[in-house]
């Protein structure tokens, strides 16, 4: 039996947008990953704790409601502090308040330590593709 790669999925902060989360959960699971879905309204420490507990290879953070800038800051540091500083960190959704040039948003979140930043409306297939590529590159998954 193949050992599935584990990933953490959740919507950060005071954000309750659940639809995209449910669809991502469904799609990533169907693509062969083991998803620990924390659902909505997830504080930073819960992401980190879940990742440590399950020995996950990636954390997928969603923020839809506009407070992403405030909520997502410091997650990479928190990972480092707890010894999982190398973990793959993806973030996506509607990350900032207002309709903004995505290149700026991307830079902001890359600077915060996220490995990949996704524009609003990203489809699950793209996430799954990137996840596979990144994990293969890191030798954490076979092609």
């Amino acid at each position, binding site marked *: 039996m193949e050992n599935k790669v584990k990933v953490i999925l959740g919507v950060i902060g005071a954000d309750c*947008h659940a639809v995209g989360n449910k669809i991502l959960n469904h799609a990533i699971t169907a693509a062969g990953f083991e998803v620990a879905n924390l659902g909505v309204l997830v504080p930073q420490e819960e992401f980190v704790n879940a990742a440590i507990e399950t020995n996950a290879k990636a954390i997928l953070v969603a923020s839809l409601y506009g407070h992403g800038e405030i909520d997502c800051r410091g997650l990479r540091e928190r990972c480092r502090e707890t010894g999982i500083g190398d973990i793959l960190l993806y973030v996506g959704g509607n990350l900032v308040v207002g309709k*903004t040039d995505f290149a700026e948003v991307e830079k902001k979140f890359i600077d915060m330590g996220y490995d990949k930043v996704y524009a*609003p409306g990203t489809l699950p297939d793209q996430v799954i593709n990137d996840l596979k590529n990144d994990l293969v590159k890191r030798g954490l998954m076979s092609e």
Partner: protein
Amino acid sequence: MELKNKKWTHDEFGAVREEILKQWPTGAEVDFEEAVKYHENIPAKRQFAKRLIKAKKNGETLTQPRAGVALINEHINLLNFLRNEGEADLLPTTIDSYTRQNQYKEAENGIEESKRAGRSLLNGFPAVNHGVKGVRQVVESVEAPLQVRHGTPDARLLTEITLAGGFTSYEGGGISYNIPYAKSVSLERTILDWQYADRLVGLYAEHGIEINGEPFGPLTGTLVPPSMSHAIGIIEGLLAAEQGVKNITLGYGQCGNLIQDVAAIKALEQLAEEYFAKHGYNDCVLTTVFHQWMGGFPQDEAKAFAVISWGAAAAALSKATKVIVKTPHEALGIPTKEANAQGLRATKQAINMLRDQPFPITKEVEQEIAIIKAETRCILDKVFELGKGDYAIGSVRSFEAGVLDVPFAPSNYTLNKILPARDNIGAVRLFDTGNLPFTKELIDFHKEKMEERAKVEGRKASFQMVIDDIYAISKGRLVGRPNSK
């Protein structure tokens, strides 16, 4: 306190109130007697309930945006802009998400960061932090009826402050502001907390101040079948009426099929009148609100305008009392004031072009009304039965049993067993009726409708169909057909 659908006594209310007003320093600014006097001096044209009654009488459909930013002056400018440039009839104040989760410290932080950044870093107006004084600055600077719009499971302090501040309308309810907005807050808790909020509105009513209340109709905004949102809306309306609320607006989020949308508003009006009368709340004035498409929007602004205009048209044709307006920025972020005003103006134009055009109540509309009413009655009567004659207790038990069930909701307190999908003409049906207390005829009806579509698409009804429907409008269609169709 034990949950039951019974008007709180003054003592019960008073005891809780003392605690509530201490939750944040601004609570101390609330002085009920003074607030009543303040309301007495609010001119008629700024009173929400009065404007709704007039609209209902004249067959108007009023426009209302969503809007809120972190800082007082910016918020005032925003609202006045929407009034002047957006021709909005009614104005909102959307509350930020920290306040909705009672995280007033985070909200304070957001205010400070917004001041520094020179732009709003909050997704709404943190009314608790701004306090009664701050709220009144807003209320006094805007020449239109104002409503608080939020999504707060425990809104007790927020209600105290915004009503004392002079708002004349208030959105929310113990179910509709829990299930779509929270994860692990018990329903018992939120219904109790919303009895408090409703009781406060009732208290104002007892002092001659008419404040409009509005359960949040669209719930998750994502393929919610009309009967489910109607059942929940009517329950919340009845619970509010029991606490003394006298002016109630029931809501519905556009599904997208015109026949179903028109039928839904008609059914909602008829059912509400029926159930309010049946339970003896004869002195409530009931109106309706139609929410333009609440699910995922197309990113392209031109396409978004089409979705907005179609929502406006459906609202006007259904003769809802007001319509809540989306903006061309919907898919991407909180709209600029300009984009918000554009959505309002497009809506106004569509409504005005349609205001003189009555939509014929065809046999298709009548059939749909009959279906929606039959389903809603099944649900409501089962809730009443499970609660042994108490809708509050019945609601808690019904969510446990899956008699009430909201699709795609984040809450652990809904079973998430029903699965909605569109039928072949785009009406929202149930591809899985879960534990809903429907009659066999109704269950068969849904089955047939789904089979009809499945046949046309040459595939079985499955979760993939649901997913396709969720993306459909944002990808430019109503029904999420497989690519080849």
